[in-house]
């Protein structure tokens, strides 16, 4: 019996993950980010503050308010539903999950959102124009550091505004293939470049503005 | 004057100067044996059958606006009896039988067009439901035909059989079903009732009830003054709970709005009434050429006769899924009606806890087809103070008894029916 290899892009299997050429540089760049660990944090009754405080080992002092995310070291902590936050990290899952469970014991339920979400980073000069085709939010009022759970192309997704022209998307794996098709159709007019990147590499990239870091 | 080819020719030669009014515009009298609230199809037909079947002619129909301004004048006009439950089929089938002779009976062409209602199915689950329903229909003496894929596509050539998504598996056809001209039904019953002596009083809103010491109904208050009544029959569709509340009765009803859509007129391309269950869509084509179609409720309580965009998009999406060659057809108009949604999707046609007060309402979005049959039964109930066997299941105590007439299994969530 040999160790099984995860299939990080299982939800996009058999789709062509290639771009669509444009006259000039592609207006939309999509990075498919693999190797991300996503852990749910769901505080028990009246424990949200305590749970936030217990996240110090991960670089955070509090749970971000609804509609916000924060970054510290290589980790991102994002509000993800009514009473739910996601710790998003390039570190490997089981170890991180154990650490988090210990830190939050009695304060919050921890579970692994595992590989159930496809993570995309969408950037480029036409990123906003593309997003507007599916996203119901007022993107002008959705500033870097904001996050939302919202409907896009008939799919409930999580959306992070990473920079003026960059969005992070978390898409339920079962919807990912359809979403991808919608995305490529909608981005075609701008030109689309596609890359697959490991989370570890990504997090070494540009940090968020200092103001957003916890 | 009787309407006929002869009278039409005569009048045509005289520049149509001699046609009498189809119905009078009388001032309300002081008292009527029966006051019917609501000048929609059900109210007018109830008046007609009271006069015709039971000889009760001292009857008024009070309508707050113009007759037909409610749901009867804004519905997608599907007439069928392809129901599931043995408790509901007899009423609808009786209604269908009355439809078949209605134009002649009323001397008014209601354009009842029996070009079939075809429920197309795309999944095994839908097929099983259709088989169950078709067999129930046949057991009740109703016509039902199972069509295979080829037959469905012959009848509905515009259906996309290869949409890469929902294969056409077959369809359940009721050949005798079809559609009718909504306004003609209103005017035809109004004219026929008027000719039997019924007063149709428009612009007359009922604002309250009058009861004697024993609690019995004695009259109604209206925007045109008090009108005495031996019996009061309520047929006010989307406003049932409002009107019944005036009599102190709270009903298992939520008012919702349902939208309807019509396209520009195009040459005939949809020859039957077709439904696309996966997309909750139904579509037919009017004799003028407009495609008439609709989908689901907007989904929240509302008394506004106008819909919102999500359902417009939903319905258009279903149309494009079902009949993708209609992409270049344009939507001409869309509107909404306020419907009583009940806790089991079935109506109330019954006596009420208040003596002298009778109820015909809770029609959800299916009451047009029932107009002749249900009004006929309702007239019976009002005249005889007891239900006819066809409307017996549709009383108010059925929830307490645990005997809802729930054909979709939606349960006590009106917006799930």
């Amino acid at each position, binding site marked *: 019996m040999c160790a099984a290899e995860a299939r990080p892009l299982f939800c996009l299997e058999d789709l062509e993950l290639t771009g669509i050429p444009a006259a000039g540089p592609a207006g939309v760049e999509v990075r498919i980010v693999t190797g991300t660990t996503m852990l749910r944090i769901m505080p028990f009754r009246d424990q949200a503050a305590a749970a936030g405080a217990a996240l110090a080992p991960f670089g955070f002092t509090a749970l971000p*308010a609804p509609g916000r995310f924060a970054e510290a070291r290589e980790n991102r902590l994002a509000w993800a539903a009514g009473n739910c936050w996601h710790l998003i990290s390039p570190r490997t899952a089981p170890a991180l999950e154990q650490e988090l469970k210990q830190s939050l014991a009695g304060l919050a339920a921890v579970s692994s959102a595992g590989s159930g979400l496809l993570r995309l980073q969408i950037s480029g000069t036409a990123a906003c124009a593309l997003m507007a085709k599916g996203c119901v939010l007022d993107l002008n009022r959705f500033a870097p550091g904001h996050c939302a759970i919202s409907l896009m192309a008939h799919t409930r997704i999580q959306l992070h505004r990473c920079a003026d022209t960059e969005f992070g998307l978390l898409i339920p794996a079962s919807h990912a293939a359809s979403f991808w098709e919608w995305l490529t159709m909608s981005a075609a007019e701008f030109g689309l470049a596609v890359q697959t990147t490991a989370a570890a590499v990504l997090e070494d990239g540009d940090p968020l503005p200092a103001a957003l870091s916890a | 004057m009787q309407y006929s080819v002869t009278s039409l020719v005569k009048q045509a030669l005289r520049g149509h100067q001699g046609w009498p009014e189809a119905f009078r515009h009388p001032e309300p009298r002081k008292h009527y044996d029966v006051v019917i609230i609501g000048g929609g199809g059900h109210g007018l037909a109830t008046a007609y059958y009271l006069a015709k079947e039971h000889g009760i002619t001292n009857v008024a129909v009070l309508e707050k606006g113009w007759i037909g301004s409610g749901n009867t004048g804004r519905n997608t006009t599907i007439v069928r009896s392809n129901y599931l439950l043995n408790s509901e089929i007899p009423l609808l089938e009786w209604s269908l039988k009355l439809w078949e002779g209605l134009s002649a009976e009323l001397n008014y062409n209601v354009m009842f067009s029996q070009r079939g209602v075809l429920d197309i199915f795309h999944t095994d689950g839908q097929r099983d439901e259709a088989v169950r329903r078709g067999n129930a229909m046949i057991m009740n003496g109703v016509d039902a035909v199972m069509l295979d894929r080829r037959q469905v596509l012959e009848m509905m050539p515009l259906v996309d059989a290869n949409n890469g998504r929902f294969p056409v598996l077959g369809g359940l056809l009721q050949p005798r079903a079809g559609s009718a001209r909504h306004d003609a039904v209103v005017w035809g019953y109004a004219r026929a009732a008027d000719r039997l002596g019924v007063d149709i009083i428009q612009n007359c809103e009922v604002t309250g009830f009058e009861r004697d010491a024993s609690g019995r109904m004695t009259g109604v208050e209206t925007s045109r003054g008090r009108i005495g009544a031996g019996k009061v029959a309520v047929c006010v569709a989307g406003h049932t709970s*409002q009107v019944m509340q005036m009599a102190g009765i709270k009903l298992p009803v939520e008012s919702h709005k349902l939208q309807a859509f019509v396209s520009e007129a195009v040459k005939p391309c949809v020859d039957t009434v077709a439904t696309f269950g996966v997309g909750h869509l139904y579509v037919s084509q009017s004799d003028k050429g407009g495609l008439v179609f609709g989908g689901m409720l907007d989904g929240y309580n509302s008394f506004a006769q106008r819909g919102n*965009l999500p359902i417009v998009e939903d319905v258009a999406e279903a149309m494009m899924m079902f009949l993708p060659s209609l992409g270049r057809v344009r939507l001409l108009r869309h509107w909404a009606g306020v419907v009583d949604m009940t*806790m089991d999707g079935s109506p109330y046609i019954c006596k009420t806890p208040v003596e002298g007060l009778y109820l015909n309402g809770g029609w959800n979005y299916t009451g047009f087809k029932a107009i002749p049959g249900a009004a006929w039964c309702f007239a019976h109930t009002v005249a005889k103070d007891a239900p006819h066997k066809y409307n017996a299941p549709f009383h108010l105590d059925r*929830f*307490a008894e645990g005997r809802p007439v729930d054909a979709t299994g939606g349960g*006590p*969530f009106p917006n799930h029916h």
Partner: protein
Amino acid sequence: MRIPCPLCGDRPLEEFVYRGDATLTRPAADAPMEAWVDYVYLRDNPKGPHREHWRHAQGCGSWLIVDRNTVTHEITQAIQARPGGEVQR
């Protein structure tokens, strides 16, 4: 129609699912049958202001209590149904 979710902000109708009358209280276990029948089947159905339950199903998932006018569709208030909510904004 747009509903101001207390957690997510203004969102369009298509993100929400409706349930209805928010003034009902579930009877006690030993309540008489009529109380149960009324609870399950009788609803407030006013023409005008209405207090109702909606779920932000395609957003944060919260059940909300929304005050909305059934004639104008104007919404005057939307709060989380769970008293206090777990999270404050």
